[in-house]
C-alpha cells in the first residue's frame, strides 16, 4: 500500500506559518484580552497544529524514505548577462525542502515546542508580560521551523539570524534584572562572532560554485541545497581545496557559536537567566541544535574536507569533556544542566565531524527529549520551591513524586543507561567514532574525551538528582512547602518521560540508517560494538554509584580544604578562567582599541562627517540659490547646459574613453 504524501509535503510551509499566526494574533491583540493566559492558549493551539502537521510530514517521510520534496518560490531573479560575478544571473528564492533530516528536526522542534507552550501556561502563570512571552515564543517557533525547512543557504541564514534575535529577546525576558539583560547581550554578541564567520563561509561557497551544478547554475537557481532529489552540487560535494577548507571552517565557527562549542560556549550557561521554559525549548532542544543541523546540512549538500572533519571532531570531542567538568561542581540546578547541554552538543558535533551525519542527528533527537524533560522537571522544582540552588533543596522526592520520576528518567537517559533513549544514541556516537579511529588515528584523543565524559555525565546529573530529591527535608528550612505542579505542567513531563524512554527505538526502524540516499551518502553506523556498549554502560553505572555514595540519601559531600583537588575544583568553579580571560581581553584589549577607535571617531571620523555634513548643507544652500524662480535664469541654465553637454559629447567623452582604454 502506498499513500502519496506529496500534498502534505507541498504544504510544509504551513508549519512555520501556524506559529506565525499566533505571533501576529498574540502580538497585536494579546494585551487587549480579558485574561492574559488566553494568549497562551492561542499559542498552544497553533503550535499544536504545527506539531500535528510535522508528525504527518515525518510519517510520510518515514513511509517514503529518502524522498526530497523541494518547493521553491523565486522572489527575485536577475537576468543573465554573461559578465560580472554571476554571469548566469542569480536568484533570491524562498522555499521549503522536506527531506529526512528536516522531517526529523520538525518533529523535535514542534513536539518540544508544543509541550513547552503547554507547560508555560502553568509555569509562567504569575509573570508579567505574558503576551510578549507567547508572541516571542511563537516567533521563535516560526523562525526555527523556517530554518529547518530552508531550501537554500540565504534563507537558512535569514532564519538563523531570526532565531538568534528571538533567543536574545527571551533570555532578556526579565529585562529589569541586570543579569538577564547582560546575559541576553552576551548571548547575542558571542553568537554574532560565529554568525559573521558563517556569512563569510556562505560567500566563499557562492563565489566558488556560482556557475556549478545543473543548468542554469547554482547562483541562477538561488543557491538551492538540492535539485531533483539530489544535492545540487552533485559530485562537487566535498571537493577538497584550501579555499573550501576555509569555508568549511567558517561553517564550523557558525555552528560553534550557535551550539555553544568551545571556545564560544560562554554564553549558554548565562542564558539560563531566561525563563526555564525558554531554556528547555531554545537552549536545550532546538536552537542550540541548529548549529549541529547546520553542520549536517553542510556535510550533505556542500561537503567538508578531511581537514575540516578533523577540526570538527576536535572541537566536538574536546567540548564534551571540557563542559562536563564544569558541570561537576556547580550548585545552580539550571547551570548544571546547561553545561551538560554543551557537553552533549559536543557529542553530536563529534559524530557529524567523523562523517556520521545521521548518528549526530540521532543523538540530537534523543537529547532534545530527555534534556527538555530535565529542564522542565527542574522548572517544576523551581516553580515549587522558588530557588535554583541545589544545596538549599533536598528531600523533594517525598513531595513531588512525579517530578522526581521524570528527573530520574531524564537523568538515566542522559547517563546512557539501557534501555533509555540516550543509551542508543550515545552508543552510536561512540561506536561510530571508534570505527573511524583505525583510519584516522588523530580521532583517538577526542574519542577518549567522549568516553570519559560518559562517566562524568552520569556523576553530575545524579549529583544534582540526589541533592534535590533525596533526603528527608530541604536543607534550607525556609523554603516554601513543595507541591506538585498543575496538570498543564504534569502532562508535558509525562509525555517527555515516555519519549525519553522510547525515542531511541527510532534506530530499530528499518531503513532508518539509509534515510539519506543521493550522490554522497554519509557512512551510517549500523553495527553494534558490544564491548563498547558494555564499557560505556559500566561507566554510566559507575558514575551513578559514585554520585550515590557521595550525595545519596541527603548526604552532602565536602571536599576537604587540604585536598589536592581543591585547585582543580576552583578552576572548574571559575570556569577555567575563560570568562575572566574574555573579560580581560574585552577590557584591556578591546577597550583599549575602543578608546583608540573612540579617539579616531571623535576627531577624525566625526570631524570628517561633520565636515561632509557641513559641506553638503552648504552645497545644498548654495544650490538652492540656483532655484531663483526667474524663468530667464532657467533658460540660461538650459543653454549653458547644452553647451557643456555638447563639449562633453564631442571632446571630453572621447578623450575619457581613450584614457579608459575603450
Amino acid at each position, binding site marked *: 500500500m502506498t499513500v502519496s504524501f506529496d500534498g502534505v509535503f507541498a504544504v510544509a510551509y504551513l508549519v512555520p506559518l501556524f506559529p506565525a499566526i499566533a505571533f501576529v494574533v498574540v502580538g497585536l491583540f494579546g494585551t487587549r484580552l480579558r485574561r492574559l493566559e488566553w494568549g497562551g492558549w492561542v499559542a498552544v493551539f497553533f503550535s499544536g497544529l504545527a506539531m500535528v502537521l510535522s508528525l504527518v510530514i515525518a510519517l510520510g517521510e518515514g513511509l517514503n524514505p529518502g524522498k526530497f520534496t523541494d518547493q521553491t518560490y*523565486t*522572489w*527575485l*531573479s*536577475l*537576468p543573465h*548577462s554573461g*559578465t*560580472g*560575478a*554571476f554571469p548566469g544571473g542569480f536568484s533570491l528564492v524562498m522555499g521549503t525542502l522536506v527531506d529526512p533530516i528536516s522531517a526529523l528536526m520538525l518533529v523535535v522542534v514542534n513536539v518540544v515546542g508544543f509541550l513547552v507552550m503547554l507547560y508555560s501556561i502553568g509555569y509562567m502563570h504569575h509573570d508579567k508580560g505574558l503576551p510578549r512571552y507567547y508572541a516571542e515564543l511563537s516567533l521563535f517557533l516560526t523562525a526555527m521551523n523556517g530554518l529547518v525547512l530552508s531550501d537554500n543557504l540565504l534563507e537558512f541564514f535569514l532564519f538563523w539570524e531570526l532565531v538568534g534575535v528571538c533567543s536574545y529577546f527571551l533570555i532578556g525576558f526579565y529585562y529589569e534584572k541586570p543579569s538577564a539583560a547582560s546575559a541576553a547581550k552576551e548571548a547575542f554578541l558571542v553568537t554574532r562572532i560565529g554568525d559573521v564567520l558563517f556569512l563569510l563561509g556562505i560567500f566563499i561557497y557562492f563565489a566558488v560554485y556560482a556557475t556549478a551544478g545543473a543548468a542554469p547554475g547554482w547562483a541562477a537557481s538561488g543557491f538551492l541545497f538540492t535539485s531533483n532529489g539530489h544535492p545540487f552540487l552533485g559530485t562537487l560535494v566535498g571537493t577538497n581545496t584550501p579555499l573550501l577548507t576555509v569555508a568549511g571552517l567558517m561553517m564550523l565557527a557558525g555552528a560553534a557559536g550557535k551550539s555553544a562549542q568551545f571556545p564560544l560556549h560562554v554564553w549558554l550557561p548565562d542564558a539560563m537567566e531566561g525563563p526555564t521554559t525558554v531554556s528547555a525549548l531554545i537552549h536545550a532542544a532546538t536552537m542550540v541544535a541548529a548549529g549541529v543541523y547546520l553542520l549536517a546540512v553542510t556535510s550533505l549538500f556542500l561537503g567538508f574536507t578531511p581537514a575540516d572533519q578533523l577540526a570538527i571532531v576536535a572541537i566536538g570531542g574536546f567540548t564534551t569533556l571540557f563542559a562536563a567538568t564544569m558541570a561537576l561542581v556547580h550548585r545552580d540546578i539550571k547551570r548544571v544542566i546547561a553545561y551538560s547541554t554543551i557537553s552533549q552538543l559536543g557529542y553530536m558535533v563529534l559524530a557529524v565531524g567523523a562523517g556520521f551525519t545521521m548518528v549526530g542527528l540521532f543523538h540530537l533527537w534523543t537529547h532534545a527529549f530527555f534534556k527538555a524533560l530535565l529542564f522542565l522537571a527542574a522548572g517544576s522544582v523551581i516553580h515549587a520551591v522558588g530557588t535554583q540552588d541545589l544545596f538549599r533543596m533536598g528531600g523533594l522526592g517525598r513531595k513531588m513524586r512525579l517530578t522526581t520520576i521524570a528527573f530520574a528518567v531524564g537523568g538515566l537517559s542522559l547517563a546512557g543507561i539501557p534501555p533509555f533513549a540516550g543509551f542508543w544514541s550515545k552508543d552510536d556516537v561512540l561506536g561510530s567514532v571508534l570505527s573511524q579511529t583505525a583510519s584516522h588515528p588523530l580521532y583517538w584523543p577526542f574519542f577518549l574525551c567522549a568516553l570519559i565524559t560518559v562517566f562524568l555525565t552520569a556523576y553530575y546529573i545524579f549529583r544534582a538528582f540526589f541533592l534535590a530529591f533525596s533526603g528527608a527535608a530541604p536543607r534550607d528550612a525556609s523554603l516554601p512547602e513543595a507541591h506538585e505542579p498543575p496538570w498543564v505542567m504534569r502532562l508535558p513531563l509525562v509525555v517527555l518521560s515516555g519519549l525519553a524512554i522510547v525515542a531511541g527505538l527510532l534506530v530499530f526502524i528499518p531503513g532508518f540508517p539509509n534515510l539519506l540516499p543521493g550522490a554522497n551518502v554519509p557512512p551510517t553506523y549500523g553495527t553494534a560494538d558490544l564491548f563498547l556498549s558494555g564499557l560505556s554502560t559500566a561507566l554510566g553505572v559507575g558514575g551513578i554509584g559514585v554520585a550515590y555514595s557521595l550525595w545519596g540519601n541527603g548526604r552532602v559531600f565536602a571536599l576537604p580544604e587540604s585536598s589536592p583537588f581543591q585547585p582543580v575544583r576552583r578552576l572548574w568553579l571559575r570556569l577555567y578562567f575563560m570568562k575572566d580571560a574574555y573579560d580581560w581581553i574585552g577590557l584591556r584589549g578591546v577597550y583599549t582599541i575602543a578608546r583608540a577607535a573612540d579617539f579616531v571617531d571623535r576627531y577624525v571620523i566625526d570631524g570628517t562627517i561633520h565636515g561632509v555634513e557641513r559641506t*553638503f*548643507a552648504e*552645497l*545644498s*544652500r548654495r*544650490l*538652492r540659490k*540656483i*532655484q531663483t*524662480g526667474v*524663468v530667464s*535664469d*532657467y*533658460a540660461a*541654465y*538650459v543653454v*549653458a*547646459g*547644452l553647451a*557643456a*553637454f*555638447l563639449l*562633453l*559629447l*564631442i571632446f571630453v*567623452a*572621447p578623450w*575619457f*574613453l581613450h584614457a*579608459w582604454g*575603450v
Partner: protein
Amino acid sequence: MVSLVGIAPWSPEIVLVAAALLVFLLDTVGVKRSELFAGLASGAAALALLFVVADAGFAPFALVRTVDPSAVDAAPAGGLYAFSSLGLLFQAIFLLTAFFVALASASRPSDEKGSAIFHGLLLIATTGMLFVAVAADLVFLVLAIEVTSIATYLMVGYTRRDPRSLEAAMKFYIIGALSTALSFFGVSLLYGAFHSTSLVALSGALGGTTQPTLALLGFGFLLVGLGFKVTAVPFHAWAVDVYDGAPTDVSAFLAGGSKKIGVFAFFLVFIGPIAFFDARGAHCLTACGSVYNFHPTLAVSLGVLAILTMTIGNLLALMQRSMKRMLAYSSISQAGYMLIGIAVGTAPALAGATLQVFAHVFMKAGAFLLVAGFATIGIGPLIDDYRGLGARRPKASVAFALMLLSLAGIPLTVGFVSKFILFSAAVQAQGFFLVLAIAGLLNSAVSVFYYARVLKVMFMDRAEPVPAPLPGPPVAGGSEPAVLAAGGFGYGRATAIALATIAIVVFGIYPQPLIAAFQSAAEHFVLTGA
C-alpha cells in the same frame, strides 16, 4: 463601406480622444459636474488600458486585442510608427497613471471651475503619450511629445485664479518651448547626417555615416531637448517650480506619467540605433568600411548626466522644508536612476529602468495624490505640518510611509525590486558602468535620510495640539480643493491611494512575473531596435 480594420490598432487613442471631446461637449452644454468628468476620464483610461494590455499579449484579454500580434516586435521596416512590447508596456504605464489621477480627482469639489479643462486635457495629454510609445520616426516622436507638452502646460494653469499656478504654467511653457526648439534643431541636424528622420533608417545608417560630428551634434541637441522632459540636471530647474505651483493632482500626473515619455524617447533615440548597431556590428565592421561607434561616447555622456541628476536632485531634496518641493527634487534624483539604465543600455538595464518607471506610478504619483488628499483635510504644505500625523491618520500615514519607503528602495516594496534590477544590471555591465552603480547606491543611501525624516516627523514626533481645521481653501499649492466636510479624502482618492499602496507591497513581495515580462519586452526591444 469603409473598412475599420486599419484603425483598430488606434483604439486606445480613439477612446481617449472621444472621451475628451465628450467632456468638452458636456461642459459646453452646461453639465458641470466634476465627478462625471472624472468618471468619464478614468473609464476611458481603463478601457484603453484594457486594449493595451490585450495587445501586449496578456492572454485573458486576448479577445479585445486590436494590434495584430505578428506586428508587435516585428523587425523594423520604416514608417512612422511601430508596435513593440516595451512600447505597449509604457502605454500601459501611462494609462495607469491617467487612471489613478482621474480616479483621485473624482474627490475634487463637484462644482470646481475648470474641471472639464483638467479632465479633457488629461485625456489629450495621455493620447500624446501613447503616440510617443509607438513612434518610429523622429518628427513623429517630437510632435507626439509636443501634443503632451501643450496639454500639460494648460493643465498646470487650469485653475486660472491662482497666481502661483499661472506662474508655474508660464515657466513650464517658456522652457518647454525652448526645449522643443532644441529638439527639432537636433532632428534637423540628424537629418543632415543621415538623410532620413526614420529611426529605422537611422539605425541602418549609423554604422556608416560620413559625418560623425554632425550626427553627434544632432544627438546632443536632441538629448538636451529630451533631457528637459525627464528633468535631467541642469535642464531640471523648471520642474520644482512647476510641481510645487501646480495643483497637486496635476503634479502627480507630471511626475508619475508625462515626464516618463522622455524616458521612452531616450530608449528610442539612443538604445534603438545603438542596439541595431551592436547587433549588426560584426557584419558592419567588415562590410561598411569606416565604422563610427557612437555607443561609448553617448553612454559616457549620459552617465555623467545621470550622476549629476541624481546627486544634485538628492542634495537639494535634503534641505527642503516643503513636502511638495521635497517630492519634486526626489523625482529629479529618481530620473537620474532611470538615466543609468539608458546609459548601460543592456536588456536587463532597460528592464530595470522600465520597472523604475512602473514603480513610480504607484510611489511617486501615489505620494502626490496623497499629499493632495492631506491638503484637503487641512494639513499644511510643510514637512513639519505632518507632525504626529501617524496617530491621527494611521491608515493614510502608513500608505504614505510605504510610498516613501518604496522611493527609498527598502526591500519588500516595488521600489527595491526596480532599483535592485537596475543597479545589478549596471554592475553586470562592468567597466565604467560600475561607477554608475556605485553612484546610484550612494545616492540611494543619501536619499533615505530625507524620506526617513518624514517618517520620523509623522510617527515619532509628538503632535502639537491639533489646530482647528482651516476654514476656506488651505494654502498648499494655493489651488487645492476646499476642506471636505466629512474630514476624509473621498472615495475616489481613497481608492486610488489604496490601490497604489497594495501594488507597492504586492509587486514588492511577488515581483517575478513582472520582472520576467519587462525583461522579455526589453530583450525584444534591444534586438529589434524599435
